[in-house]
């Protein structure tokens, strides 16, 4: 082994034109949403702790959750949970050999996006006190 050669099957320039198919977008968002929830865990536990500690703590948690920036973050976390959960159900189905061919897997990806985003919209309405 002399000089190392880096072997790529696409050039850097190709990356610009390289488009991730819908199942790929779903997949990377599944990973990102999981990592986001992992990082948010202590903050959520803090809210959980306060909300269960006492009547006063519940009021404090509710007041914090009432701040508009916190509402935006909570809506984002609701999306992370719902996307991760819906995409996860799809992966469990794929593991059972359901919907493995290309068209079916693309269709189920679109369904995951439709369902998780609709549920997120509903969660956002609840977080912002509309419903």
């Amino acid at each position: 082994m002399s000089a190392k050669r880096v072997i790529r099957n696409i050039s850097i320039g190709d990356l610009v034109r390289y488009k991730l198919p819908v199942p790929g977008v779903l997949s990377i968002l599944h990973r990102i949403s999981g990592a986001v929830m992992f990082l948010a865990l202590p903050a959520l536990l803090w809210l959980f702790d306060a909300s269960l500690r006492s009547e006063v703590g519940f009021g404090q948690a509710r007041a914090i959750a009432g701040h508009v920036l916190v509402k935006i973050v909570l809506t984002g976390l609701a999306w992370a949970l719902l996307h991760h959960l819906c995409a996860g159900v799809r992966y469990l189905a794929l593991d059972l050999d359901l919907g493995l061919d290309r068209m079916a897997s693309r269709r189920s990806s679109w369904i995951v996006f439709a369902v998780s985003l609709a549920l997120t919209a509903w969660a956002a309405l609840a977080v912002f006190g509309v419903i």
Partner: protein
Amino acid sequence: MPVGSRRVVVGAHYGLRDWIVQRATAVVLLAYVVLLAVMVALARPIDYDAWASIFVPATMKIATLIAFVALAYHAWIGMRDIWMDYVRPTAIRLTLQLVTILWLAGCLVWAAMILWKV
């Protein structure tokens, strides 16, 4: 494969087990999320008493703690996969994995403390 001090730090035999555990814990978490959603829906409108009373029964404490154990294991496998995919230097990767374990273990203990105060 390099051996000795240049050994590649990967294990063997844990791949399939973790793959199965990640799916089993996913099913546990899915069931718990549905359970909690139903409990909250039934307890509406949610004030302190209604919220706290969800977590008073021992069965719900146990179910919630089991869900947190499943969450910790599930998140550990997922985060470890992320570190293995993107962090090549072994020292940094192992440090991040250790921090991940401490992070999740801390959250798990904290969750138990919260639950048993209610």
